């Protein structure tokens, strides 16, 4: 069995994660972690939807930011996808999507302040980069034959509208709808940096120990995501898109002097700003690297590798919950509910809750990342397992799992896992804002100390790290000949 490249790759990643566990800071530091967890679950079980009007407003703002951000992102992403074959465009898109929404929000907060534009751009920019890539992949896979058959002299636009778009329409629509769901999650967590969405509401309820209010928010969020097929109708879409900008709230006005200062002073490296010239730049760079970037990168990589393997193990354990090859309808339905909850909760919110309950260490982050991503991959391979037809006399129970299903699902499983590697790393970096020593922590502290030059450099390093892991993930997927699809 060790001669299989997939098995060997898995074992190497497992070994790296185990080594990571030895050096990582994994601990529960609060005095009564289980008591707090119990209180939290009691809060979810006794939700209070009516404590303030804040909840309804936060929900409305969350939806509005998601709609405006995703609409702009998909519009510009679509335009970019048409010129995606040019290398500079590809690099530009890879760069803007390598920076997490929260980092974009932190950047825009510094000069637009709490203006709605901050939240809208924080979603629209990275989403445009993602849309550009996926749309161009979908368009490329379209049937070429109808285009070839068009009479000579047919205009490029007519050819595109008749021979390309209809063929891809369903896929484009499905992917955009899926992204809107992601946009709702992104919009919710923007509240953690102060925008008026659900994250803000959650943070304030938690800090005052109002678990029932927090529980109400979580339940509303699940209902919002779960009922999407009911309220997201093509006919209603224009109303949502045109209406959403009016519900973003007023925020605070933009001070244009801040915008100018940010670009002409704040983000210029300190030694250059102070006139020390290039001679002062090297020690400054060295200082940022040694005291902030390298520790940040190290912790981000260690945490990512542990979370990646934990995600893998959890997905392999979780997929039988929804597989038709195990258990009856009751168990499958409850399995579906569990996985929907796991994958609908943004990892940032999970990490925030667990961090409040267990105290700061890498443990809450690993558990949060594994739960969210394990929920997604478990759902995907569980669904794929339902397309497998077993012979009537196939073994049952554990033997069925180990002999019949895992060997058949292992390759798609690895494909999904390596596809999400870069996503897990992007999230790991951002979880630093919560107080875990990954790159986000150093970015956030640099911003707190009004050292935007350092913050920008650290964000740039984070982006490069993400691009590197994305390339490595693609290399491994190609080496192992793993098929992937963009929608996961």
């Amino acid at each position, binding site marked *: 069995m060790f001669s299989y490249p997939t098995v060997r790759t898995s074992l190497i990643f497992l070994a790296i994660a185990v080594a990571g566990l030895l050096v990582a800071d994994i601990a529960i530091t609060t005095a009564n972690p289980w008591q707090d967890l119990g209180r939290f679950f009691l809060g979810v079980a006794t939700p209070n939807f009516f404590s303030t009007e804040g909840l309804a407003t936060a929900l409305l703002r969350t939806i509005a930011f998601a709609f405006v951000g995703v609409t702009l992102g998909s519009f510009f992403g679509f335009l970019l996808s048409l010129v995606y074959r040019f290398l500079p465009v590809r690099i530009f898109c890879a760069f803007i999507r390598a920076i997490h929404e929260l980092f974009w929000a932190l950047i825009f907060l510094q000069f637009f302040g709490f203006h709605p534009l901050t939240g809208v751009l924080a979603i629209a920019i990275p989403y445009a980069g993602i849309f550009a890539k996926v749309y161009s992949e979908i368009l490329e896979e379209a*049937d070429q*034959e*109808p285009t*070839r*058959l*068009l*009479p*000579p*002299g*047919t*205009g490029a*636009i*007519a*050819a595109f*509208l*008749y*021979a390309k778009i*209809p*063929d891809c*329409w*369903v896929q484009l629509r499905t992917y955009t709808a899926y992204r809107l769901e992601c946009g709702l999650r992104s919009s919710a967590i923007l509240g953690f940096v102060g925008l008026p969405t659900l994250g803000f509401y959650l943070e304030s309820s938690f800090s005052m120990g109002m678990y029932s209010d927090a529980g109400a928010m979580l339940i509303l969020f699940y209902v919002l995501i779960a009922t999407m097929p009911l309220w997201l109708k093509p006919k209603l879409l224009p109303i949502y898109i045109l209406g959403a900008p009016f519900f973003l709230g007023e925020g605070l006005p933009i001070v244009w002097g801040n915008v100018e200062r940010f670009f002409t002073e704040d983000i210029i490296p300190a030694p250059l700003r102070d006139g020390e010239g290039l001679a002062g730049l090297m020690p400054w760079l060295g200082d940022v690297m040694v005291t902030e970037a390298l520790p940040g990168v190290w912790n981000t990589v260690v945490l990512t590798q542990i979370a990646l393997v934990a995600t893998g193990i959890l997905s392999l354990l979780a997929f039988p919950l929804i597989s038709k090859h195990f258990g009856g309808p009751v168990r499958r339905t409850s399995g579906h509910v569990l996985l929907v909850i796991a994958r609908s909760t943004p990892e940032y919110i999970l990490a925030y809750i667990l961090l409040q309950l267990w105290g700061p260490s890498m443990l809450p982050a690993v558990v949060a990342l594994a739960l969210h991503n394990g929920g997604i991959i478990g759902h995907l391979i569980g669904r794929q397992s339902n397309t497998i037809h077993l012979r009537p006399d196939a073994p049952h129970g554990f033997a069925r799992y180990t002999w019949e299903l895992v060997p058949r699902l292992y390759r798609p499983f690895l494909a999904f896992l390596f596809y999400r590697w870069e996503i897990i790393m992007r999230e790991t970096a951002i979880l630093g804002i919560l107080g875990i020593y990954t790159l986000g922590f150093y970015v956030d502290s640099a911003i707190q100390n009004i050292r935007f030059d350092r913050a920008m450099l650290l964000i740039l390093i984070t982006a490069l790290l993400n691009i590197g892991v994305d390339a490595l993930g693609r290399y491994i997927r190609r080496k192992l000949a793993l098929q992937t699809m963009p929608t996961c």
Partner: protein
Amino acid sequence: MPGLEFDGLTASFNGERVVGPLSLSVGEGEHVALVGRSGAGKSTLIKLMYEQVEHEASLIPQDLGLVNALPVFHNVFMGQLQKHSVWYNTWTLLKPFRKDREAVASLLEELGMPEKQWIPAASLSGGQRQRVAIARAFYRGSPLLLADEPISALDGLLGHHVMEWLTSHFTTSVVALHDVEMALKYCSRIVGIQNGQIALDAPASELAPADIMTLY
């Protein structure tokens, strides 16, 4: 249109030559049937000819090339996209003009499927899909038809009707056919292909089915 000269037609697959080099001249008004065993190179030859006339022909390819998500009307209308402005074409995508609707409807009438005009191509049967590709090629309005097994999915009576219709409306045609009787009945000249070369070239009136069978 003067006659067509096809020169130096060759094609290779995996470094192995599958067609030609061969030359073929088709006079104006000729209806040429390409016959031969499957794999002899008929489809490749049709494709090569389409390239050599720089797409200035009505083509019915074997895989039809329909846009599955579009209704029959738009699939047929695509044959004349080059004649209209971008605005006209875009508007037609949303709401077709009456004169185009009527033109396409009369074509579909001829092909025995008038009721299918607004059905997406994806939900048609094999024979109906083939007729949509035929209608599109006809709507294209070129005097030259290049067709690769255009009636393979049509039943006998309809097949005869379509072949007669095609050969009487196109000035010149080159049609790959596996049905020898159809070829003899509706085409004026038979070209037999064997191993990528012309093995037989004679007027249809001088041949009997048995002469062609030697190719198979």
